[in-house]
């Protein structure tokens, strides 16, 4: 019994001394920190995609808590996360419409020929910087997959030398949009069904030489689309994505074969994140 008391009091004493020392240290050296930052970090998806405009999720969390940044900037976050953020921070925000990336080019290895044999770093920006790219078309997808490499959710696949987004995997962060040296990728509302898959600003005859599925600027589609939902920007037909529209025959009527019409719009958010890199 005596031994037990000795032991307990000795260890307890050591503990007490340590505790007092720590308490003093905390008192004089302590730094205040808002606990909510960590809670917010836990709510965010942790993909660190940078789509919100901040350097990763932790940075955005800090900005939300301390600087009062808007809480609806995270594209990969679903409605529940937004709700949770709203409750935690006591601020309200409208959920933004879900957007997915789309590559506005249809020129794959068969339809859009190459003009030279590129030898060098397999990266779109690099290939583009060497003599303006190795495709005849000066605007089309080079197919070296830079967008696929930056996609945090593995939603972009190279299909026959053409970058193709799987809309159901896309988390809407926009990393690919920022990467594409030819600015072919656009974030569009997931509910849109009609797309002009061409970004060439060249005139019709030039496009025809460069690609079998390019927009030749005939403007037939602009007449089919009501409410100016497709308009001509120079020689290129451009979809106005602020408008919801559909036309059952629009794809067949395009003589350039560059308009696609998806039968089932993608509204479901089935994000399957790749394992985030760099966690211990």
């Amino acid at each position, binding site marked *: 019994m005596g031994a037990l008391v000795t032991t307990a009091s000795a260890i307890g004493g050591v503990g007490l001394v340590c505790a007092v020392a720590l308490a003093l240290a905390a008192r004089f050296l302590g730094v205040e920190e808002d606990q909510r930052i960590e809670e917010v970090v836990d709510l965010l998806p942790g993909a660190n995609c940078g789509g919100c405009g901040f350097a990763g999720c932790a940075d955005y969390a800090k900005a939300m808590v301390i600087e009062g940044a808007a809480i609806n900037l995270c594209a990969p976050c679903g409605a529940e996360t937004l709700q949770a953020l709203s409750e935690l921070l006591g601020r309200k925000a409208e959920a933004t419409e879900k957007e997915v990336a789309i590559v506005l080019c249809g020129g794959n290895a068969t339809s859009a020929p190459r*003009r*030279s044999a590129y*030898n*060098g*770093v*397999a*990266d779109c*920006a*690099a290939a583009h*910087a*060497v*003599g*303006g*790219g*190795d495709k005849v078309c*000066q605007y089309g997808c080079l197919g070296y997959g830079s967008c696929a490499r930056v996609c945090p959710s593995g939603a972009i696949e190279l299909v026959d030398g053409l970058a193709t987004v799987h809309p159901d995997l896309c988390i809407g962060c926009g990393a690919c949009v920022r990467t594409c040296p030819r600015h072919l990728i656009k974030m569009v509302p997931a509910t849109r069904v009609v797309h002009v898959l061409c970004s060439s600003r*060249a005139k019709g005859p030039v496009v025809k030489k460069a690609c079998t599925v390019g927009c030749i600027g005939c403007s037939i589609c602009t007449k089919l689309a009501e409410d100016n939902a497709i308009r001509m920007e120079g020689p290129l037909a451009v979809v106005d994505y602020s408008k919801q529209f559909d036309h059952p025959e629009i794809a067949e009527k395009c003589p350039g074969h560059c308009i696609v019409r998806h039968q089932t719009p993608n509204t479901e958010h089935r994000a399957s994140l790749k394992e985030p890199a760099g966690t211990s």
Partner: protein
Amino acid sequence: MKLLKAKHKSHGGVHPKYRKNLVQDMAIEEMPLPQLLRVSMAQHLGAPARPVVKKGDTVLRGQLIGEAAGFISAAVHAPTSGTVKAVTPCPTPAGPQAPAIEIEPDGEDRWDPEVEKSAAARDGLIAEFQKSPGAKKDVVLGIIADAGIVGMGGAGFPTHVKLSPPPKKPIDTLIINGAECEPYLSSDNRLMIEHAERIWSGALLVRKVLGAGTLRVAIEENKPEAIAAMEKAAGDFGGEADVAIVVLKTEYPQGAEKQQIYAITGREVPAGGLPMDVGTVVQNVGTTYAVWDAVVNARPLIQRVTSLTGSPVSTPRNVLARVGTSYADMLAFCGGTAGDVAKAISGGPMMGLAQASLDIPTTKTTSGIVLLTPAELSVYGSTPCISCGRCVDGCPMNLMPCELSQMLEAEDYDAAEEYNVLDCIECGCCAFQCPAHRPLVQHIRQGKARIMAKRRAERQAAAKDES
């Protein structure tokens, strides 16, 4: 005339196969006018020129067809008389398309009367300029600007800008660069052999404009004929003080601005700085010739000497052709090809730009067109770096290309910036030697582009924050 040896030796450098023998003894030949000329508006660094003619206009040789669009820009003139067929985008040697004016020559090659009129008044002007350089300096600079003269060594920096350093940066040394260290090319060499006197006159004019004391002409020792010609011609300018030819050791890149300044003066251009920061201006011999032609004969820059060479070329030649002649037409003038062509390079093999096609017009900066056979090719691979250190030994800027390339492969831009990637002059000494055939220069170029883009974005963000 004294022949000086270079006093200093900058780090690194390589000795590629020069193969100058293909064209160095071929006299400059003027090429007949082609069927069509496409004159690009983007032949220089800076803003492309603004077209001032439209489809259907008739133009005369030497007439202004594109005006400078800003301070760092250059005027463009009609290379011959004829009709404007179109103003349309056209590929440039660097790749991206730029507006170009297509001219169908009428075959008469009539000079713009304005040119002939002002040429008549030039003798008087030059005499006045010699008497009081200060007063007439701006007039001469204006002539150089109006003639659309740009650096003809490759970069195409507008010459009038280069010759107008801010008053805070006095220039004491002018170096005329006749090193032509790029393998294969011989256009500057021929120009010095055939027009030494004109180059000297041009150089003396430029020196007067700059108010510099020292004038050096730098020539690599593998061009003895050019050295002899320049030396002989210098005799005519006996009275000039502090003028000399510097004979450089044959080594690539002796023609690179910073390395040449160091070799001759021992001054190091500070990182991120310009030659004028050390009181020096370097001017290519071709540009110097163009200055002479513009000031003395009132002729704008509408033609240049281009070495068309390489083993697949039937008859390699030094061609004097109008700006806007297509590469294909030039090749036809040289008898076409004999053998397979695997690569077509605009410029020399070390820093030139590979072309996807020969259907592309020449510019003021096309110093050479080099064709390579499949056997002469070196193919880049992505094999790992074996740390042999040859690139470190060879780098004239004293960088570590092997480290930089691996950092950039791993997209570690901050580390690359810390390792001074932005100081790279892209001379290619590293990739030339790399036994693993790594695309070192391309990695570095990409990295530089990314870092510059990031800096621009940061500057913009900072500007937005302030407003």
